[in-house]
């Protein structure tokens, strides 16, 4: 069964460093998302991406964040200058069409020291 994959599974970085989180969505899916979950809190929406552009972003998704689909398979989230409060699980999700079920990857645990 097709699944969303994410790399790395864990990332430790120093505050102020850039990180890139990678996702490979399910191949025939068209809508892509990033969510995050800070420890002990709810899963929260960061950004959605469709037709090679951002379709919506949350207040969290400030100028330090960017997303890219550099080729036909990868979907990346870049944090330019990480802060301590960026420490969280980051989940990628994809769906074949608008308001269809979103399928999530296993997540990347980011720890900013």
């Amino acid at each position, binding site marked *: 069964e097709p699944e969303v994959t994410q790399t790395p599974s864990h990332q430790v970085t120093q505050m102020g460093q850039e990180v890139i989180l990678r996702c490979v969505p399910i191949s025939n899916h068209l809508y892509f998302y990033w969510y995050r979950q800070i420890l002990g*809190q709810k*899963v929260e*929406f960061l950004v959605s991406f469709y037709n090679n552009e951002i379709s*919506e972003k949350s207040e969290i998704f400030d100028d330090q964040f960017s997303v890219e689909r550099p080729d036909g398979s990868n979907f990346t989230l870049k944090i330019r200058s990480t802060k301590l409060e960026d420490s969280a699980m980051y989940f990628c999700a994809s*769906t074949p069409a*608008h*308001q269809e*079920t*979103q399928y*999530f990857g296993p997540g990347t645990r980011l720890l900013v020291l």
Partner: protein
Amino acid sequence: DQQVKQNSPSLSVQEGRISILNCDYTNSMFDYFLWYKKYPAEGPTFLISISSIKDKNEDGRFTVFLNKSAKHLSLHIVPSQPGDSAVYFCAASWRSSNTGKLIFGQGTTLQVKP
């Protein structure tokens, strides 16, 4: 922002009995609801969904009930099995959203005891 609430942080049930997980929402524009299950160190796994035009959807041991007037939905698991022990998230979205983004509740940790 508490548009989707799961007021019970945890639930413990005996194997074979029914588990009932509850979710309340405040945004009347929500018209599509989903339940996800999450094990530690894994991503959320889709369980079951319901559109606002229905009040019940069933898939095997899992049934979701939607009460639009009360802005309440529930997930019933019958019979409960130890492998069902996980965190369950309720999520909602709305058709007028051009993105289909999901708004999640805080989650309920279900423990099914053998």
